[in-house]
């Protein structure tokens, strides 16, 4: 058993790895055989590149200002996303979990890389890495520390391993000093990492305009 602390970059020959030419040839083959249609692949690419954490941030910001929406979000995040006109993605169940001063959640997929991509965009490389998949479950406080998150001793840390079809989204704690902010301003504070549980939003003051 070898120990690897990070995923390797693709084995390259020139600018692109061998896999690049290989998958292009595979697509051509499959299109030629009628197994898949090029338009469908293109549409899928368009969908993938359209995904970003902005949608997840909208859910969080709305939950911060509207307690009844938050309850609906906690009850059924898929339905709550649809309510805001967002695409919750193909997963049959999306669950939002709420961070509080007493409880902090963190999400991982130890077996592969399951992630609420429709609402957060593509997962970061580290989320898919062998080292995160290993340590997020066995040493979560160590991982949080590396990410600059220090939890108080009295905070219960809950790690969620996405082992099945359910996707998890973390509702981070609304930072102090944001009472005057509107929903759009609040959404801008919510980062991708915060919705995985690896960061805590902070109130940022806008740079002065000269």
């Amino acid at each position, binding site marked *: 058993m070898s120990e690897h602390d*990070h995923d390797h970059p693709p084995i390259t020959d020139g600018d692109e790895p061998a896999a690049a030419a290989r998958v292009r040839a595979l*697509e051509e083959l499959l299109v030629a055989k009628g197994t898949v249609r090029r338009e469908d692949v293109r549409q899928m690419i368009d969908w993938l590149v359209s995904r970003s954490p902005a949608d997840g941030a909208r859910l969080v910001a709305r939950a911060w200002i509207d307690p009844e929406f938050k309850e609906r979000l906690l009850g059924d995040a898929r339905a709550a996303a649809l309510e805001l006109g967002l695409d919750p993605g193909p997963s049959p169940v999306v669950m939002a979990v709420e961070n509080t001063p007493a409880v902090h959640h963190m999400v991982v997929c130890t077996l592969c890389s399951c992630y609420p991509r429709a609402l957060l965009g593509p997962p970061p490389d580290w989320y898919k890495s062998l080292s995160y998949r290993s340590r997020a479950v066995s040493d979560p406080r160590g991982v949080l520390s590396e990410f600059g998150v220090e939890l108080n001793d009295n905070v219960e840390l809950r790690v969620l391993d996405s082992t099945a079809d359910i996707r998890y989204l973390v509702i981070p704690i609304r930072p102090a000093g944001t009472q005057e902010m509107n929903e759009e301003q609040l959404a801008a504070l919510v980062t991708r990492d915060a919705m995985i549980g690896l960061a805590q939003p902070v109130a940022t003051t806008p740079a002065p305009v000269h």
Partner: protein
Amino acid sequence: MLGYDRQMERAVHDRGGWPVDAAIDRSEHELADWELLTDALVGALNREGVMNVDELRRGIESMPPDEYERASYYERWLYSLETVLTEKGMLEPGELDRRLGG
């Protein structure tokens, strides 16, 4: 280092608690075109009912362990695509290599 249950045999993809010495590499990269294409191809095949996500995962898990650990994320997906599609008779063995002139 943290102990973990050595009595339970693990497949290479089953990483929870696997011994790791180094800090997590937090560098990120934009997905290359070929990586997006691989992702989209899997998605399109799934939508067509040709290959589902469980088959994708199973194909990835069938990689020889050293290859799994050496491969990049989407190289694993590509391996799975080739394996499962060949198994389903949608690809002839060696057909892709011949197309590439290999």
